[in-house]
């Protein structure tokens, strides 16, 4: 047995360490340890602040999935105070959210994940003429995928961003890489395990095409976020307000934040998203994924085979509340539920819905700390976010010193992440989880499918046909996790087109309201209120829980996607999705575990999100050592 450490894990957000115990004879990963290695304390910092400011603080939990924590935050404060936002604000927020999905997934695929699959070194061996021919073939072969995206606007005359299929284009990229190699300054491509046998799985022309698109999309991605800049004023970290949006609309005054010209800018950007995803991302994804699956790469599913969780998104119209259940009456994306044993087949999978009451029930969502650097009075039990305790309890590693680790102690405490559990059980979250829940919900007839649910089912069935495998075989794998993300990016764009049309139609009907200011002043709030804000972050199910008292935040909790996926073990021995994925993977060269990096990256980890903080009690916490838990409700 060999113990392999990868620290830092790069091409992620934040700080993550993994340790693997590998059977050198078989390449099997016998056990794996995933440790979040940062802690910031944002929720502690939120205590005592004005709840209307919370979105700005919470948003700084993550700048990669920027805007999503602001979104969850305004939702939980509105849920607490009973504020229903206007129609236009709902449509605009949906476009900002769909834009995040489209952008974040694209950047993840190309800039955080692609180099696990393709290599600039292999790209040097490609023939640019053959690469151009290949590009055309792939557009023919997989191009039909773009037809799955409905376009209710129909304003684009023809695509502006289209993959170039000329030898000169590919030669230019190849020359650039060649010069980088020759100059000895490889920059971002330095020091990687490019000699790993997995990089031989694809023909050189696929490598060149994908590396060219890596660079091409680095230039294009910025344009995809334009709707957030128009509606929110900047990106990263656009602005929001409790009660709706601040970007007032006027068709008479060009000084208004939103006018006809600005709407045209948004529309153009949505089409750019569509072209980047339909013509680059999905084609490259299918080309690479198809070959990997054909070569037997159907592992890395891990926990996804057994249990996944989602919360649901895209409210079609404004809702009354979340905790009371109306949010889930209005959503188009029915990923709200837990599905167990999907790998046995969609008919045999067990489906459990997740609706309003499940988010306040102390038994449904809990966090454990038996293997986290925190202290509970009784660490055999989990606590609901509203009752959580955060008392740091750093214990150091198994081998090495407190500040210089050799190996972590998986028998004891080993991570700054807690372990969230659904009814005491670990779940995987993320695009793959959402796709499994939605597909199961529709196929088993638990929901009346929306147009979005139907689109998702069509996407899954189309890819199943391409791969020649049923969904329960290809979806819960590392390739399937990466594929679900790409398909979901396309859903994000479809939602943007759909909500953009609704926005235009509503303005046309004479409604320009974007904010409900009835309860803006704290004097109009109840003495005490509690709210839940849920959303589907790019990386998975996200929930914020707030407790407002006398106009101030008495308690604020976030349970975030990478905490679910990257969590350490729970006291019952259950392991999180990262660890399960690694254990479901075979490595060819133990000291160069590229396969494991593929698996970990397929989750799109975000460690600043997952290790921000959990809970506290009310007093001064400069000395964080002794916060007892204040039962917050």
């Amino acid at each position, binding site marked *: 047995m060999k113990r392999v*450490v990868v*620290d*830092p894990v*790069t*091409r992620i*957000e934040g*700080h993550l360490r993994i340790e693997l115990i590998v059977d050198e004879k078989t390449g099997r990963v016998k056990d794996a340890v995933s440790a979040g*290695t*940062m*802690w910031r304390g944002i929720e502690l*910092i939120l205590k005592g602040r*004005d709840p*209307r*400011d919370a979105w*700005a*603080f919470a948003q*700084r939990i*993550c*700048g990669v999935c920027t805007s999503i924590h602001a979104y969850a935050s305004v939702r939980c404060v509105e849920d607490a105070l009973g504020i229903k936002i206007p129609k236009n604000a709902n449509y605009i927020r949906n476009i900002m959210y769909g834009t995040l999905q489209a952008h974040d997934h694209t950047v993840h695929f190309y800039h*955080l994940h692609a180099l696990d699959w393709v290599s600039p070194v292999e790209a040097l061996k490609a023939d640019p003429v053959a690469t151009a021919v290949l590009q055309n073939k792939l557009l023919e072969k997989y191009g039909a995928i773009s037809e799955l995206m409905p376009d209710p606007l129909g304003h684009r005359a023809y695509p502006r961003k289209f993959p170039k299929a000329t030898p000169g284009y590919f030669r230019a990229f190849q020359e*650039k890489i060649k010069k*980088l190699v020759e*100059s000895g300054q490889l*920059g971002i*491509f*330095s*020091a*990687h395990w490019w000699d790993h046998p997995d990089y031989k799985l694809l023909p050189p022309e696929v490598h060149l095409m994908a590396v060219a698109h890596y*660079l091409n999309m680095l*230039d294009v991605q*910025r344009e995809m*976020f*334009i709707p957030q*800049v*128009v509606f*929110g*004023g900047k990106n*990263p*970290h656009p*602005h929001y*307000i409790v009660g*709706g949006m601040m*970007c*007032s609309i*006027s068709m008479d005054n060009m*000084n*208004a*934040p939103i006018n006809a010209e600005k709407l045209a*800018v948004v529309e153009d950007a949505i089409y750019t998203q569509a072209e980047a995803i339909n013509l680059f991302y999905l084609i490259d994804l299918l080309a690479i994924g198809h070959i990997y699956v054909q070569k037997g790469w159907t592992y890395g599913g891990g926990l996804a085979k057994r249990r996944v969780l989602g919360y649901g998104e895209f409210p079609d119209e404004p809702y009354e509340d979340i905790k009371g259940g109306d949010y889930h009456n209005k959503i188009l994306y029915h990923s709200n539920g837990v599905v167990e044993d999907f790998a046995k087949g969609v008919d045999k999978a067990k489906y459990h819905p997740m609706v309003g009451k499940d988010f306040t029930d102390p038994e449904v969502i809990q966090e454990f700390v038996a293997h986290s650097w925190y202290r509970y009075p009784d660490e055999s039990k989990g606590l609901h976010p509203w009752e959580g305790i955060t008392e740091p309890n750093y214990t150091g590693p198994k081998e090495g010193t407190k*500040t*210089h*680790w050799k190996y972590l102690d998986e028998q004891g405490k080993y991570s*700054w992440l807690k372990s969230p559990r659904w009814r005491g059980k670990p779940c995987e979250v993320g695009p793959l989880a959402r796709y499994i829940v939605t597909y199961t919900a529709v196929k088993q007839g638990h929901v009346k499918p929306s147009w979005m649910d139907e689109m998702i089912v069509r996407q899954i069935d189309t890819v199943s046909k391409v791969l020649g495998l049923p969904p329960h075989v290809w979806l819960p794998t590392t390739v399937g996790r990466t594929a679900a993300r790409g398909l979901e990016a396309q859903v994000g764009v479809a939602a943007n087109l759909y909500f953009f049309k609704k926005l235009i139609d509503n303005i046309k009907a004479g409604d*320009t309201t974007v904010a409900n*200011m009835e309860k*803006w002043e704290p004097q109009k709030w109840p003495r005490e209120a509690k709210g839940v804000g849920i959303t589907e972050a790019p990386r998975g199910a996200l929930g914020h829980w707030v407790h407002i008292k006398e106009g101030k935040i008495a308690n604020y909790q976030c349970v975030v996607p990478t905490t679910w996926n990257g969590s350490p073990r729970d006291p019952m021995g259950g392991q999180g999705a990262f660890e399960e994925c690694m254990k479901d993977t075979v490595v060819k060269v133990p000291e160069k575990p590229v396969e494991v*990096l593929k698996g970990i990256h397929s989750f799109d980890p975000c460690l*600043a999100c997952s290790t921000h903080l959990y809970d506290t009690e009310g007093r001064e*916490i*400069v000395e964080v050592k002794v916060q007892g838990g204040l039962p917050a409700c």
Partner: protein
Amino acid sequence: METFWEAFKRHGVSRRDFIKFATTITGMMGLAPSMVPTVVRAMETKPRVPVIWIHGLECTCCSESFIRSATPLASDVVLSMISLEYDDTLSAAAGEPLEEHRKKIMKEYWGNYILAVEGNPPLGEDGMYCIVAGKPFLEHLKESAEGAKAIIAWGSCASWGCVQAAKPNPTTAVPVDKVITNKPIIKVPGCPPIAEVMTGVVMYMVLFDRIPPLDSQGRPKMFYGNRIHDTCYRRAFFNAGQFVERFDDDAARKGWCLYKMGCRGPTTYNQCGSIRWYNGLSYPIQAGHGCIGCAEKDFWDNGPFYERLTNIPVPKQEADADRVGAVAVATAVGGAIVHGVASKLRNSGKKEG
């Protein structure tokens, strides 16, 4: 190492386009057109500078902002202008090979590489609230700073402390200049900084081989010399006393001044009002929200954000914002009167003539 001009030639860029690019960059950096030949000369002779970009406690919004840069595009900066040898977000490699590479680059370019720091070190728990390669980030930072020519402190985290240092600062997070005191540090605050400000700072440093002129707080003067209030397109409404009183009211639809909604424009030094975000597309005030002052020290604790400015500490400002406003209004009115008088005189002169 090859120079920019060589790199551009490799790209197939013509001499003419190269000069055009140099001209654009000159403007971007706030330099006079007479500086174009100097910029061209610098680009012809300077090799690509190695950059080590490390991450402490942060949210990666600075890296995300950096890749949003349009002029220059981030890809041109990363592949042709600098050599980004270590970066948590973009580096292909991970783990030990990457750490070894960092050490190799430091040794090879001792005294010549730039260290870019995103985020900050926590001092609590012996630094173990932020761990890189099994060691405190604090150690990682000190070690990486040792042979650096200069340090860029990206964003408000590295410059001031930002959100994790807001009260009560549970991890004792501190800005970079609290632990590195023997190196030039360029602070580029903002949460995040504007993309073109970030690439502009890098361009200045690699082209001129020196750090940009800094103000008393360590910020590049060219980008942090003006208050947003002074460059805001809504300033005329402030001067005229026309204010938004409530989100989405009639005044909000007319784009009036957001000062009464808590706007921090009068006390925030940044380029939002002039170069704006996304090459001039917008900035928070243009989208109808007051500035929250994200480029200023301790802005998180100068809230609540929707409370009108009265007594927040303002360095080097003669009066509080209300008085500044009053004076500005008076001047504007005075100006209008003078202007009115002058045009009357002119008109009467014409008649007589």
